């Protein structure tokens, strides 16, 4: 951005004061954020240092480990820290990736529909509806999930026989991977649709007209020109959606299940109805134990993982958009 305009007579004393004051306000924000990163990492350190890299590995039942940590005595020397977070990390990855992949596909085609193929009256209804869906609080999605979808899956989709066959390992109650992914998809898709629609609309008309004049049909023009030009925005929408999916705690704690279980894809269809508990949901479920030192530190370790992941996400998105600049696609 060009240098902002300034008065010709040079900085006045009140200007210097204003600049300092405003600069201080802006820096407060920065200090807060830096403080957040530092403090969360510092509080999380004992859990990481005690387990080393095995913190990310698997081994043992996550829930019993958490209970042990919670029950460990008040003597600081005898704190229990053993923890292997793999089932939680795996659950987080499954739920997030599933929702983002399905959501992105859906959002892309829905956005193309809204911009190119929808009749005018339908378009005028769909756009505010999409914005509305994006603003609905996550607890409402969770409520519908837990009161409608979970009983539906539990009572109608999972047969009694299937439940009994795995009863010795895990309870299939309808709180499942499938419900979590479905509702999370519905939660993150509207934002992606809105962002992609905006991006498709700002593609210069000269490009799409030129493509039409060369004899490409309407679908090919949208796909090869508009979507291609909107790629940076699509990447941005993906990142936003992934960040939202990663950090979703409340809705997932309501529908995904309360056991830290790692579903096995080799289980076939049962894989989709096994319960999971992503990281953020685990924090919420164990929130009462935050003041108990070792459990609190373990939970802060979860938060640290979430924080670093969202940092890396933004960085990765920025990196992916750089090569696209070469061909003139605006970042």
């Amino acid at each position, binding site marked *: *951005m060009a240098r*902002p*305009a300034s*008065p010709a007579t040079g*900085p006045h004393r*009140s*200007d210097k004061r*204003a*600049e300092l*004051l*405003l*600069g201080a*306000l*802006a820096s407060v*924000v920065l200090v807060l*954020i830096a403080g*957040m990163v530092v*403090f*969360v990492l510092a509080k999380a350190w004992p859990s990481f240092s005690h387990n080393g890299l095995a913190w990310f590995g698997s081994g043992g039942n996550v829930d019993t480990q958490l209970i042990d940590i919670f029950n460990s005595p008040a003597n600081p020397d005898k704190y229990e820290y053993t923890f292997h977070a793999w089932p939680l990390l795996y659950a987080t990855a499954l739920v997030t990736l599933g929702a983002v992949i399905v959501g992105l596909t859906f959002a892309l085609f*829905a956005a*193309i*529909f809204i911009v190119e193929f929808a009749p005018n009256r*339908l378009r005028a209804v*769909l756009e*505010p*509806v*999409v914005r*509305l*869906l994006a*603003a*609905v*609080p*996550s607890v*409402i999605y*969770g*409520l*519908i999930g837990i*009161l409608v979808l979970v009983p539906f899956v539990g009572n109608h989709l999972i047969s009694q026989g299937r439940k009994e066959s795995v009863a010795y390992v895990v309870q299939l109650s309808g709180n499942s991977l499938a419900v979590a992914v479905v509702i999370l998809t*519905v939660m993150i898709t509207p934002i992606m*649709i809105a962002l992609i629609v905006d991006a498709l609309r700002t593609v210069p008309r000269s490009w799409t007209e030129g493509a039409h004049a060369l*004899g490409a*049909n*309407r*679908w090919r023009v949208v*796909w090869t020109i508009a979507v291609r030009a909107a790629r940076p925005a699509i990447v941005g929408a993906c990142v936003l959606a992934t*960040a939202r999916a990663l950090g979703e*705690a*409340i809705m997932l*704690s*309501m529908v995904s299940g309360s056991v830290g279980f790692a579903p096995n894809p080799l289980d076939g269809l049962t894989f989709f109805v096994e319960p999971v508990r992503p990281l*953020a949901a685990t*924090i919420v479920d164990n929130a009462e134990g*935050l*003041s108990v030192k070792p459990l609190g530190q373990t*939970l*802060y370790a979860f*938060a640290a993982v*979430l924080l670093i992941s*969202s940092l890396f996400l*933004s960085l990765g998105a920025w990196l992916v958009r750089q090569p696209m600049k070469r061909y003139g696609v605006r970042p």
Partner: protein
Amino acid sequence: MEAATARVPAARPLESGWRRSDRLFVGLCWATGILLCLIAGSLVLYMLFRGLQYVSVDLLTTHPVSDLDQSKTGGFLDPLIGTVILAVMGTLIALPLGVGAAVWLTEYGRPAWLARSVESGIEMVAGTPSIVLAIFGLLLFSQQFLSFLSFTASGNAVFGRSFFAAGAMMSLIALPLIFGATRAALQAIPSHVREASYALGKTKAATIRRVLLPMSREGMATGTALGMGRIAGDTAIVVILLGATLRLQGVGDEPVLSTLRGTGSTLTSYVYNNSPAGEGNAPDKAYAAAFVLLMVVIALNFGIDLFTSRRARRA
């Protein structure tokens, strides 16, 4: 030479200059569009149906009753008040920070490394999950030097959960929205406005105060409304930082401060607690509260849409 034929309309139907895969994709687009309509429609209709089934005026005006069987008695007046308090507090704290940072970034912005860091920092906050903000807030407000903002138990453990704590963290949710909207509004002001002001002899500070900020009022209002909407809809911070008491429990004796230092609940935590995920077992109350919450959010967004479209039409 034929006589002029009937007027040829502009849009032509799909012709056979299309490959089969092209037609498939267009069909897919239509399918997703219709699916979108169906999902949105069923969501809204279901909430409407359930909400109207259970909501009533005295639910909105009576205090909740702490009873093991929640489904019989009490309303959700306290959670409603809690939502309002948090929304107001959060935006009140976020406004000076967000507007100040936006003004500094667009009008001054020196040194450049600081400007870039502030921008990236606010983007980071926007991307941080609210659960992480929540437990950072707990960490912060459990410290001794902030004990006056909440309840201190015997044994010197700072409780750390209060309206102050929740409101402060909620401000971080509204901050990126207010910052973004204000910055967009300021950048949209053409430079000749500033130059005219300076040419009249006004200092930069006076220009900002008297000319630029009033001109960006609408952008700020939009950002504030968006922020309030997001604060009203957030649950994670409330669950962790508001102490989860059904009714507003004040701490101390001062009139307003005691409520703010105390604990309570909001519509979102009320819905959460009354669902099978929480302790209460009153799905009808949960539906009613969710309905009210949804109406508030819809009204807010509808208002923002109306406002921005009217502004666009005027421009």
